[in-house]
């Protein structure tokens, strides 16, 4: 296969994800022209950015072959801890930095359990999430005097730079940074290698444990930041603020074309996934569908999105009638090519 085809093929998966988003957007606009208005698009970008931040860490973790289920709690942590510290006098920006650092430290705990103790990520991150939840309950109890979100966070979440929401610009910045990390740094290569094959990566000299650890650290930091921004938008913080984002962060990564097993995918794909999910949930009220129906559509879109990206990669494999294995014994090409 030529270099150009390979380039296009990899991009094709991401392109398919954006195409899906565009199609949904078009359908919504056809149904109700107001959907494409500037104010609505701004709104969509803002909502999508929350998903985007939550899914940033998730993308890195998944690419390296893991999963982070503590994202919703880290998001709640971001908002709640920040207000708590703000109430005791820690200034906005410093507070944000500290909260993100602590979020990273929590991610470190996740990473340690997964990479060193070999606890399955589903269980490890679930348990750590629970511990964070418990901790947040204590803060909530101690700070009975409401929950003020520092102005900085509110500003980021609600202000605009010209016609574009600040938070969307921040998201764009993060996206570029993530993209550079993944495609242009040694760490990025190591992440992909670890996710593609832990054995090959190890034998090639990659410190797989460290790489996995780092992805969880970054995920913790990103989720904490997501929570900060989200609570800035909402104007308050509460325990369940991150709950919907567990599903959406994972779904965004999947719809974006990444392999849930790791080793394949890009953050730009996740961006497309975040946009798709946001457009989808914004569309549904237009069609008079209930939230229950929204769930059904979500599921269908996920399955469709994955099928589409596999089709785009030319790897859609329905079992042959006879069930015969079609692998060259000299050349077993993997299914996830």
């Amino acid at each position, binding site marked *: 296969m030529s270099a150009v085809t390979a380039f296009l093929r990899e991009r094709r998966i991401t392109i398919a994800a954006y195409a899906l988003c565009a199609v949904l957007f078009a359908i919504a606009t056809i149904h109700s022209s107001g959907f494409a208005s500037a104010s609505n698009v701004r709104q969509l970008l803002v909502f999508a950015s929350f998903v985007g931040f939550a899914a940033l860490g998730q993308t890195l973790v*998944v690419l390296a*072959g*893991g*999963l982070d*289920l503590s994202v919703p709690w880290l998001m709640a942590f971001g908002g709640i801890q920040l207000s708590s510290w703000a109430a005791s006098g820690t200034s906005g920006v410093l507070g944000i930095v500290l909260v993100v650092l602590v979020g990273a430290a929590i991610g470190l705990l996740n990473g340690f*359990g*997964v990479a060193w*103790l*070999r*606890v*399955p*990520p*589903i*269980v*490890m991150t*679930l*348990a*750590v*999430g*629970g*511990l964070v*939840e*418990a*901790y947040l*309950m*204590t803060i909530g*109890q101690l700070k009975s005097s409401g929950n003020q979100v520092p102005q900085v966070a509110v500003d980021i979440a609600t202000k605009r730079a010209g016609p574009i929401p600040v938070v969307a610009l921040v998201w764009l910045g993060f996206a570029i940074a993530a993209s550079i990390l993944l495609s242009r740094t040694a760490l990025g290569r190591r992440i992909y290698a670890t*996710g593609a094959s*832990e*054995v090959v990566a190890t034998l090639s000299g990659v410190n797989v444990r460290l790489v996995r650890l780092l992805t969880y650290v970054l995920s913790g930091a990103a989720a904490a930041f997501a929570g900060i921004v989200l609570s800035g938008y909402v104007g308050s913080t509460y325990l369940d603020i991150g709950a919907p984002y567990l*599903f959406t962060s*994972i*779904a965004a990564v*999947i719809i974006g074309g990444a*392999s*849930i*097993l*790791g*080793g394949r995918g890009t953050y730009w794909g996740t961006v497309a996934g975040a946009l798709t999910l946001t457009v989808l949930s914004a569309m549904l009220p237009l069609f008079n569908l*209930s*939230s*229950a*129906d*929204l*769930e*059904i*559509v*979500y*599921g*269908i879109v*996920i*399955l469709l999105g*994955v*099928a589409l990206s596999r089709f785009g990669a030319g790897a859609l*494999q*329905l*079992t042959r009638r006879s*069930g015969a*294995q079609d692998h060259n014994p000299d050349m077993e090409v993997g*299914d996830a090519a």
Partner: protein
Amino acid sequence: MSASAAQAVAPRRGALVGRVKISWTGLTTATILIVLAVVDFILQPALLNLLQIGILMQTALPLVLVGAAQTLVVLVRGIDLSVGGIMVLANAATAVWVGERGGAHQLMIFLILGLAAAAGLLNGILVAVARFEPFVATLGTWTIFNGIALNILPTDGGTPPPSLISFTFGTTAGIPNSLIVLVVLLLAWRALRGSRLGTRIYAVGADEERARLNGTSIVGVKLFVYAAAGLLAGLAGVFLAGVTSSGTPTAGDPYILTSVAAVVIGGTSLAGGSGGIGLTMMAALALIFISDIISAINLETWVSVAASSGLLLIVVVARTLIDREIQRRRT
């Protein structure tokens, strides 16, 4: 979530106790369960009667059933995130469809279980025929089933049939029905495990390529497994409706991850090919004992949450370290 992120495979051989071979894995899990059970009984001596145990089993049964469903799927190297969705689907259907129509309750419940199995079959088709990753396929179907359940029953409510309610709370020959269901499940598992199909299930999970080489229909085995998982999840939902005397369409989510936790704690490998429902059952009961202990101590909410997460963490880490040690001893 790559296979390498899963646990090390636990060996099936172990100590010889009398003429019975017990695996180290099972021994570990049983120890965990016994320790927790003892602690709970010490804290609540009133628990030590059959009726009270029956009530505890009622709480435990949905988790046990969902855990069993998850175990089957994990055995073939899959995962089923939709167990929560199938559960609430059956649950909502029981609360809404069965209660309203008079008579023929048993038939309706059988039909609902059939529906649950069909839901599981859909999962199986997506995984085995359309070759979706199990995680992805069941993530999609989970929300679909969840949505359907919410359509049937948008909020808690509905009226499950009285016959079901009296069954879940009742006894047969003095033994709580929930306990009987538990035992029946165990016996059914042993039958499956000892059958040819059981051998094939383990073979597919352990080494799919070689299983195929040996003439196993991979698709057939997986379809069965996912359908059976759906059935068990549906059963959990039906039973839950009896226990709570209503439909609870939003109750499914915690069961998903907890079922995976039960599988992991029990010692079944997420990579497939080893373990079993017996292990998961013990682990699920252990988790129930943990939450019972915590509620018995009557702590503030945050302590309960911290304690259950913390205990989960400790148990899983202990399990992982023990399994690694067993692996090391083997080589």
